[in-house]
């Protein structure tokens, strides 16, 4: 059609800048990936730059032989799954309870909860409390502090308040208690917001790093994020140990674990779960933060 305007100078600049920034965001992921599947010797010298060379997949098998790696993967997976379930359940239920005008001291308790978003005692007092509670070197330290999150509860409360109250009332007249109403009426209604919370919470748990740093010295409780951080600093010695314990190896130089192959491969393994769930949650999170934005 003639109405369609021609491509302007502005469009050219606009598309170019956006494309360049997109490339900047995408390239690191691509660069690490091609390095995990290329000749390890070339990769460690930085010669794999734009496309993979001599493709092999042995790095992915090898990193699971690093002592403690499999355990760390289990710990990360465990805290993500259990932590997310607990957070979603608690946020859903508590968010619903706070919509009940008749709750004893509702206004007070709601403020008691929400105000914790705005202060924080500081690192040392927090560390000392965690220690006094026996949460050093304890898997529960990954779960308990994350259960109640004011922001998620605000999201649920706002969402429940936007659903028609008549549904709840009719169920109550039929003799349903609060818990039944929550389970049978509210839960199906608030699934979209719970999905949003599940995504945020799962990503948060998977990415969490510094609780391990502060609270855990027991190697059996190390997470993937934590051992990745250690490998970034000590990969050379890990590679050395693997070359020795790998022993009688028939591996040639191109597949021999190097500091670079360990760093890149572990990084890819930590990134992949996020890449896998990312397309699913893209459609939820926009909705999620917009609800949050309305409430401020």
């Amino acid at each position, binding site marked *: 059609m003639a109405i369609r305007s021609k491509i302007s100078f502005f469009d050219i600049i606009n598309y170019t800048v956006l494309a360049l920034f997109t490339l900047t965001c*995408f390239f690191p*992921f691509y*660069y690490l990936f091609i390095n995990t599947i290329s000749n390890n010797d070339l990769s460690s010298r930085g010669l794999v730059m734009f496309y993979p060379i001599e493709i092999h997949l042995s790095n992915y098998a090898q990193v699971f032989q690093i002592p403690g790696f499999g355990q760390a993967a289990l710990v990360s997976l465990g805290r993500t799954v259990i932590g997310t379930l607990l957070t979603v359940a608690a946020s859903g239920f*508590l968010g619903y309870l706070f919509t009940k005008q*008749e*709750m004893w001291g509702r206004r007070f308790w709601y403020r008691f909860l929400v105000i914790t978003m705005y202060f924080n005692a500081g690192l040392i007092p927090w560390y000392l409390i965690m220690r006094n509670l026996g949460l050093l070197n304890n898997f529960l330290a990954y779960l308990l502090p994350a259960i109640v999150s004011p922001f998620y509860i605000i999201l649920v409360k706002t969402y429940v308040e936007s659903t028609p109250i008549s549904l709840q009332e009719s169920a109550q007249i039929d003799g349903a208690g*609060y818990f039944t109403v929550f389970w049978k009426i509210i839960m199906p209604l608030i699934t979209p917001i719970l999905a949003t919370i599940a995504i945020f919470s799962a990503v948060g748990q998977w990415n969490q790093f510094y609780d391990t740093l502060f609270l855990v010295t027991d190697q059996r409780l190390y997470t993937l994020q934590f051992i*990745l951080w250690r490998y970034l600093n000590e990969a050379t010695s890990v590679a050395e140990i693997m070359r020795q314990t790998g022993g009688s190896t028939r591996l040639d130089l191109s597949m021999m674990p190097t500091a670079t192959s360990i760093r890149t491969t572990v990084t890819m393994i930590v990134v992949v779960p996020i890449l896998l769930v990312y397309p699913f949650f893209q459609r939820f999170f926009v909705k999620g933060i917009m609800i949050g934005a309305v409430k401020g």
Partner: protein
Amino acid sequence: MQVGPSQASTSTPIRERFQIKSKHWLFLMACPFLVLVFIFSYLPLGGWIYAFYDYRPGIPLSKSDFVGFHWFTAMFSNEVQRSEMVRVLRNTFAISSLGILTSVLPVIFAIMLTEVRNASFKKIVQTFTTLPNFISWVLVYSFAFMLFSVDGGFLNNVLMSLGWIEEPTNILASNQHTWLAMTLWGVWKGLGWGAIMYIAAITGIDQELYEAAKVDGASRFRQIWHVTIPGIMPTFFVLLVLSIANFINNGMEQYFIFANAMNMSNIEVLDLYVYNVGITGSNFGFATAVSIMKSFVSLFLLFLANGLSKAVRGETII
């Protein structure tokens, strides 16, 4: 049992009876969660007491010396310590200020993206630019390491093969431009995500405003200037006010991970300083005193930002 007949008569008494019985029951159901809030958010405030003792790990508090406000005055008592605090505060202010300056970038990015008419291009850009927000700082550092490291890093190799440099430079272990580098990593990670709110705000602008502007002969730039920008100003303002409230809370994860012996003097923000003094240096009393000061200053900033928001927009943020 009298419940049966009275229930049948009218609905109002039922509801009242229901409420009297249930208001405590509702509280009891919420109680376990409130206990968790108390333990993990309020109980640590009790730990502020350590700021008034000469506490060393391993010795119980009851056997430690009470030192009053010693740790608070110690922050600025002697020349060495004073310059140390000034350095840490300068890092904090510089990085936060750069953060506030770069907070217009997501606005620009959002406007640019909404000006794109090709839907699939738009989708691709949004997908890839939002992704970095969902990876941890450890992973970001791993990327940085691979791209910028001194032996075999991507950038050094590219520059050397182009013949632009002779020797590889160690960008990560450098004391140059640390504040800027930290800000740029923050932009790389947060830009696409930060733009989402603005994109939603732009989508919410009444299309009739654009139509009216077109009828009046407004060019594309004029439409952006007179319709789009005023449309997203409220969102920008709220986020700006929040970032003022968080001016001294940079967090520590990014800085902790990117820190090394070379750049420590320029990367050490308040939160990282508390960690270095308290956990690494085992000086719990002093680190807690710094935390307390920090809490009061950020509380003050929060009220200031809230007042600002009330004055300008007539709406509070808390």
